[in-house]
C-alpha cells in the first residue's frame, strides 16, 4: 500500500520536500544570494534597476522611534499595504483599503485605529515576522488594484500568481485565490484555492482547496473552467527576468496583476513550496529534468519563455477532464 503510493507519486514526477531541499534549493540556490530575495527592499531595488514593474514604495521605517512618524507617512495615501521587509509566507502583511484618519479599514471591512497599526509596525520592527526573529524593517507599498478578470475569483484578497522559474525558464504556474476559509490570505494550507495555470496559454487547468479538486470558487461560486490569466506572455517574461537579477536557479516568483499597470513582481522566494504540483495536477520532476538537460541557458528572457511555452504547454483534454462535465 505504502510502496504502491510511493511508486505512483514517483511516476507522476511529484517532488517531495526532501528532494526539493536537497536536489533543487541547495543545488541551484547559493546561500549568499538569499539576502537578495529575503530582503524585499533589495529585491525591489534590483527589479526596478532591471526595468521590472513592482508596486510603488510609499515609505520605509527602520527603527522603533520611526513609529511616531507613521501617521505623517500614511497621511498622504488613501490605500496602502504594510509589509515586513524580511517576512516570509505572507506573514505580517497588513492591507488598508481606506481610511478617514480616524478609522482604518481592512479588506474584511474591520475598522482599526492608528494604535493598532502602530503596534503592528512595532512588532514587525522587533522581528516578529522575520526569519529567526531578527530586527526587521517595514515597507509601505501602494495597494494593487484588482484586475477585473479576477473580480469574481477572489474573496477579500488580490489573487497572486506563483511561477516556478528554473534557471530562468518558467516551468509551472499557479494562481492563488483567497477564500473566506483562508481569511483573505493566499496560503494554500489555510484554505486558499490553488489553480494550476497552463504555461502555454495562461488558462486554468485544475483547482484544489485543501488538496481536493474544486471546480468553482467556494465563496463566489464562480466556475474556473473559463478562467484565463491575461498578459500571459508579458507575465512569464517578467518572471523569467527575475532569474537574471537574482541568479537563483530555483525561484518562486509571486506576481500580481494590477488593473492599470499590468503584471508586477511582489515577492521572490528561494524556497518555493510544493503545493503547486497539486494545483497543476502534475509533478515538477519531468520539467526540472528538461531544464537540467539543457546544454545552454538562453540569456534572453523572451526566448526562454518561448522555449517554456513550447515545452510545458499542457494539452487541456487530458488534464482538464472536468471541463466537459461542467459544460454538459
Amino acid at each position, binding site marked *: 500500500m505504502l510502496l504502491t*503510493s510511493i511508486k505512483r507519486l514517483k511516476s507522476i514526477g511529484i517532488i517531495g520536500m526532501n528532494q526539493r531541499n536537497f536536489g533543487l534549493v541547495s543545488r541551484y540556490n547559493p546561500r549568499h544570494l538569499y539576502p537578495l530575495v529575503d530582503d524585499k527592499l533589495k529585491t525591489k531595488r534590483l527589479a526596478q534597476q532591471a526595468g521590472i514593474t513592482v508596486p510603488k514604495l510609499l515609505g520605509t521605517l527602520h527603527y522603533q522611534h520611526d513609529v511616531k512618524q507613521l501617521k505623517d507617512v500614511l497621511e498622504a495615501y488613501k490605500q496602502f499595504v504594510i509589509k515586513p521587509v524580511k517576512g516570509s509566507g505572507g506573514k505580517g502583511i497588513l492591507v488598508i483599503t481606506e481610511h478617514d484618519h480616524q478609522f482604518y479599514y481592512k479588506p474584511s471591512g474591520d475598522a482599526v485605529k492608528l494604535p493598532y497599526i502602530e503596534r503592528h509596525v512595532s512588532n514587525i520592527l*522587533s522581528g516578529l515576522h522575520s526569519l529567526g526573529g531578527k530586527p526587521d524593517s517595514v515597507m509601505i507599498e501602494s495597494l494593487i488594484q484588482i484586475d477585473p478578470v479576477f473580480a469574481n475569483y477572489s474573496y477579500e484578497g488580490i489573487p497572486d500568481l506563483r511561477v516556478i522559474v528554473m534557471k530562468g525558464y518558467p516551468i509551472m504556474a499557479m494562481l492563488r485565490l483567497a477564500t473566506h476559509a483562508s481569511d483573505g490570505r493566499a496560503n494554500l494550507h489555510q484554505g486558499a484555492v490553488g489553480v494550476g495555470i497552463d504555461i502555454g496559454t495562461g488558462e486554468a487547468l485544475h483547482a484544489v482547496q485543501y488538496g481536493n479538486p474544486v471546480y468553482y470558487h467556494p465563496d463566489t461560486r464562480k466556475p474556473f473552467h473559463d478562467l484565463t490569466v491575461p498578459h500571459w506572455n508579458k507575465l512569464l517574461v517578467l518572471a523569467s527576468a527575475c532569474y537574471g537579477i537574482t541568479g537563483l536557479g530555483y525561484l518562486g516568483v509571486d506576481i500580481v496583476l494590477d488593473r492599470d499597470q499590468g503584471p508586477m513582481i511582489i515577492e521572490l522566494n528561494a524556497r518555493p513550496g510544493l503545493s503547486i504540483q497539486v494545483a497543476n495536477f502534475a509533478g515538477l520532476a519531468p520539467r526540472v529534468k528538461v531544464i537540467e538537460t539543457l546544454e545552454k541557458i538562453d540569456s534572453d528572457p523572451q526566448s526562454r519563455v518561448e522555449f517554456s511555452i513550447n515545452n510545458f504547454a499542457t494539452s487541456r483534454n487530458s488534464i482538464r477532464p472536468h471541463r466537459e462535465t461542467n459544460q454538459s
Partner: protein
Amino acid sequence: MKTDTRLYSAVILILFVGIGLILYKHLVLGFPLMPDDKKFVWTIEAKIDFQAQGDPVIVSFALPPDEPHLTFMEEDFASSDYGFSELISNNERRGQWSKRTAQGAQTAYYRLSVYEHGNIVQIPPSDEPVPPQKPELDELFMTASLTLIEKVRAKSANSEIFTRELIQTLNSKSPNQNQRLLRNDKAGQDHKTNLILDILALEGISARVVRGLFLEDGRRRQSLTNYVEIHDGERWILFNQDTGQSGKPKNFLIWQRGGQSLLDVVGGVNSQVSFSIIKNTHSTRSLVVNSNLNEQASIIDFSIYSLPIEQQNAFKMILLLPIGALVVVIMRILIGIRTSGTFMPILIALALIQTTLFTGIIIFLTVVGIGLMIRSYLSRLNLLLVARISAVIIVVITIIASISIISHKIGLSQALTVTFFPMIILAWTIERMSVLWEEDGPREVLIQGAGSLLTAIIAYLFMTNRTVEYLTFNFPELMLVNLAMILILGQYTGYRLTELYRFHSMGQDNATDKH
C-alpha cells in the same frame, strides 16, 4: 556526484571508527553490550593459624600467580601488629608477615577478590621446565615403579598419554599388589602427588605439582587440591591426579605451581592454613571500568569514567541528546511531522525524563495552555517583542510556582517536578504558538503542538530505555554511528510519510484518469 562519494567515504570511515571502538571495548576490554550482564566475583580468604613461641616470627605464604584471564580486584593482608611485605621471585609471589616477638595463638589473613574474564582464551604457562632429577627410592618401591612404568609405557605413545594412563592405573578400583604398595591408601594426597612425580621423573618427564582451590560459594575450612602438571616438550598440561583428566577444571583457582612449600612459619608451631570462599555478583560493567582504570588502559583513562561521579551523571544525560536528535531527524525527514522549534521536543523529552511521562505531559499542557491564555491578554497590551517574551517568562515562572505550591498543598508530590521544565524554552514555545495562532489559526497550533509532543514522547521513550541509556553512556562511540546515520538521512531525498497523504489525491485521480 563527487560530493556523494566524499560523503559516503566519510560515513564509512565514521562507522568504521565507531563500530571498531565498540568492538574493541567489548572484545578486548570486556565491556558487556547489555546492561544486565553480571559476573561472579570470588572472595577468598586464607586464614593462617599457628602457635608463636616468644621468638621473632616470619610467616611466608604462597600467593596465587597473576594470570591473564583473571583480574585481582583487591588483595588484603590483614593481621594485627604484623609487618607485611610481598616478595616476588622465580615466577612466584609470596606474602611475608613478620613480628619481633609473639606469644600464643596467632592468626594472619590474606583476602583476595578475583573474577574471571569470560572471553579471553586461557594461555598455559610458558615457563621452561627443569629437567627431571632421578628420585631416590628404596629397592622395593623402585622395582614396583619400574614394573608399573613397563605396563603403562606399553599402552602409551607420548608423555601426555603416558601420564593419563599412569594416573588411571594408579587409581584403578581393583589395584594389584604392586599398585597397592605404591599408592598406600592411608597416606594423603601429597603422597600420591609425590609418587606420580617420582614415576614421571623415572620416565624422564618434567612435571610439577600444582596446588589450587575449587571455588564454591559459601565454603569454609577448605584446603588446596593437588594437581599434576607435566611438560610434554612443548607445553604444560594439567592433570587431575585422581582421574587422569587433563585441562584446568572450571572454577579451579591455581594457587601455586611447583614444589615449594605453601606455608613456612619461622618461630611458630602447629601452623595450618584454611580457606573460605564467598561468591558475589557484580555488574560486569563496573568491574571492567574499575580494572581498566587501575591498569590505565588509555581509552578508558581518557574517557568519561575518569571524571568525578557527579560529572559522569551529567554526561549520562548529555550523551542521550544525540538519540533525541536522531529521533527528531527521523520524525522530520522520514515521517515529515511538523514541530514548533526544531529541537524543542528534545528539551521537552529531557524534562519528561525528570517528571515521568504522564505527569510531564499534564504539566506541559497546563503550563502552555495557561501561558497561551495570558499571552493573548499580553498581546493587547502593545508591548515590544523582547519585553513581551520576558513577560511571558515571568508568567511561566509564576505558573510553575503556583503549580508547585498548589500541588504540594493538596499532596501531589509528583507535580513538584515541574521545575525541571526549561522555562525559557516554555516561554518561547508559548510565544511561538501564540503568534502561530494569530497568523495561521488554532488548527496549525494543534498540528505543531501535537507534533512536538509526539516527537518528545518518542524521544523520551528511547532515551529512558535502559539498554539505550546503558549503551550511550558506556559506548560514547555510538555517537559516531549515530552521526553516520544522521549523515545518511541527510541525503534522503525520497518522500516523507506525510507527503504520501499530502499528495494522495493526485495519485488516486491520476490512476483513475488512465482508465
